[in-house]
């Protein structure tokens, strides 16, 4: 018995001298350490390693050697990078406003619909649940020329000449973007609806008593009070469009990002550099650039839309 007691007393020396508050802190940190260490090892460590890799010429099969800023120099001189850069921003510049506008309009009117409200909401949300790959394959066939493609069938039945869509350097990017916007609508509508519901009804009642028009109510009450929701959605969807990949890759699997790189976003270029050409160092340099773009855009947006 005495042996057991001794053993308990020995480490208990330091522990028993601590206050209850200190013990709480130690316990709290003990539990917090698990996710923190996990996050550091799985997330932050590889991120830092990517920065290091971007300064090497590692290619999976060959050992890495330090090349300094060579990868970045090559990137700046690569016309493909600048095209991909433009494409990525086209996805952002077209995708974010269009999807937000549509989803706001839908949410604004859906908010007033009582008849089958939940059913309609569910219908809008459905595409969000669909796998991007499956969706892209279906849309790929929508865009086909006449005997197969639904859209061209409709166009030609109205006497409009058929459009090349994915087989055109100017139409391909919007054609790829359309299903991506459509797929994201459900989520944005739900968030907008929640934001609209959070605005106190009393504001609207007061405004109506004062005789404000519907347009004025929208501009003076709804939109300003919806700002937090808007900021969240703008940032969220911007990041989404900046790192668009699966829709682009799957809608044109034989020539991903084609034709002639007209739909290739930065993430796809990274993927191809890394896992098709195995130029890991060069791919890491591209990811660093993507990281910086995402960082800057998010910071700028947060600053612009911050409550003053």
């Amino acid at each position, binding site marked *: 018995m005495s042996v057991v007691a001794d053993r308990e007393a020995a480490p208990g020396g330091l522990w028993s001298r601590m206050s209850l508050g200190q013990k709480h802190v130690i316990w709290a940190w003990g539990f917090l350490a698990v996710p923190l260490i996990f996050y550091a090892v799985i997330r932050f460590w590889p991120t830092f390693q990517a920065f290091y890799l971007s300064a090497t010429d590692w290619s999976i*099969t060959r050992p890495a050697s330090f090349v300094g800023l060579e990868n970045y120099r090559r990137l700046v001189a690569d016309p493909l990078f600048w095209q991909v850069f433009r494409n990525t921003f086209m996805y952002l510049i077209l995708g974010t406003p269009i999807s937000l506008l549509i989803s706001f309009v839908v949410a604004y009117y859906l908010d007033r619909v009582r008849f089958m409200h939940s059913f309609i909401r569910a219908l809008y949300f459905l595409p969000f649940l669909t796998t991007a790959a499956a969706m892209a394959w279906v849309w790929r066939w929508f865009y086909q020329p*006449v*005997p197969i493609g639904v859209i061209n069938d409709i166009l030609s039945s109205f006497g409009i000449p058929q459009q090349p869509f994915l087989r055109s350097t100017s139409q391909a990017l919007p054609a790829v973007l359309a299903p991506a916007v459509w797929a994201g609508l459900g989520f944005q509508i739900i968030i907008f609806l929640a934001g609209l519901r959070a605005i106190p009804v009393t504001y609207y009642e007061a405004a109506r008593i004062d005789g404000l028009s519907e347009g004025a109510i929208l501009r003076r009450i709804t939109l300003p009070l919806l700002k937090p929701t808007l900021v969240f959605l703008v940032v969220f969807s911007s990041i989404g469009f900046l790192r668009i990949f699966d829709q682009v890759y799957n809608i044109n699997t*034989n*020539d991903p990002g084609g034709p*002639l*790189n007209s739909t290739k976003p930065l993430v796809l270029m990274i993927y191809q550099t890394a896992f*098709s*050409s195995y130029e890991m160092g060069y791919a890491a340099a591209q990811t660093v650039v993507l990281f910086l773009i995402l960082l800057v855009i998010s910071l700028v947006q947060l600053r612009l839309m911050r409550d003053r």
Partner: protein
Amino acid sequence: MRFHHLFASVALGFATLAASGAKAVEIEYWQYVFDTRVKAMNQLIAKFQEANPDIKVKQTTFPYADYQTKVAAAILAGQGPDVVQLFYGWTDNFIAGKMIRPLRAEAFPAADIERDFFPIVSAMKRGNDYYGLPTAVRSLALFYNKKAFKDAGLDPDNPPKTLDELVAAAEKTTKRDGSGNIVSAGLTLDMAGQDHHWWREVLVRQFGGAPYTDNDTKVTYNDEAGLKALTFYTDLQKKHKVGQVGFMDEGQAAFRAGLAAMTIDGTFRLGSFNTIKGFEWGVTELPANDQGVRSNYASYFANAITMKAEGEKLAAAEKFLAYVSSPEAMKIWMEVVGELPARRTAALTPENVAHPVYGPFLKGLEYAHTTLFKDEAAQRQAAMDMVNRVLIGGEDPKASLAKAAEDEQAIIDRAMR
């Protein structure tokens, strides 16, 4: 008493474990998932183990998309396969990464290999060493829809033999709607499929050029012959309007659906086309040019021994590689997978040569070329972009050809660095 029993059985257990551990060598074989290939390899392994009870072979498979990355990562980590399947075009990469070892000349004499196998096996040779051997090889041929030929008033037993006849047959079999849109193509145009091989190794040569020199490290198609070959290809859509890139998404899909009278594809497509119920199809050699010059593109997956295999595992791996490259294995592979035997004697049997489907592919092997790709995906992309610039961008073929040659040379130079 009970204790004694227990002790005895445990001791016996250890003894058998130790004995079997010392006796059976287990080696690992890796290939990508493709139903018939896995099935064929399982049969080969069963037969091999029957003949070599002291060797066990474990087969591991995973999807093609991750294949190369996973093999590289595993071998470099000191794990993974002892015998590995690789596309011939990856050989340089695998050697540079010290992933595969040269075959020992005592076990696989070069003279025997060169006597018995089709010449395209030389793509596995570096210096005096062979780095792997194929079980089966693939070549290209022209598939044609016999029903479409009959409907267009062509003889379904007399498919086109020359490029001129090909264009003529394509023109007759193309169907268009009132506004001139193609509703059924004469010939599929699918640069992302096999057409880039057809252009590179067949058309360029038939118009008097050569796609590359110096072991395929110097691009040489930017000349008169290359321009003629490119113009011939793009004219199929622009001038003759017998096909359209992107029609039905893929050439093979259009042919399968009965919406293309002809398509150029490889032996690996046989399994898929064999399930076509709607019409009868035939196969013929790739058309010759006016002077009767023919060419073909052949490729293969080879099996190689990795750096991981040492000692008795190396000996077992050599035995296994010898078996999967034997005439018997090739026969099984052909029956199950439908790919052509890599040994001349196993392939060129009178029965095979006269075979209506295998015959044209086998004839193609005799004069086939094998491009030594440095970065296959990127080089294919260069060829696709070349055609797209002309067909979509309206660019002058000459300028597009020059750009493609420049791009591809840059890809090769970078990969060789």
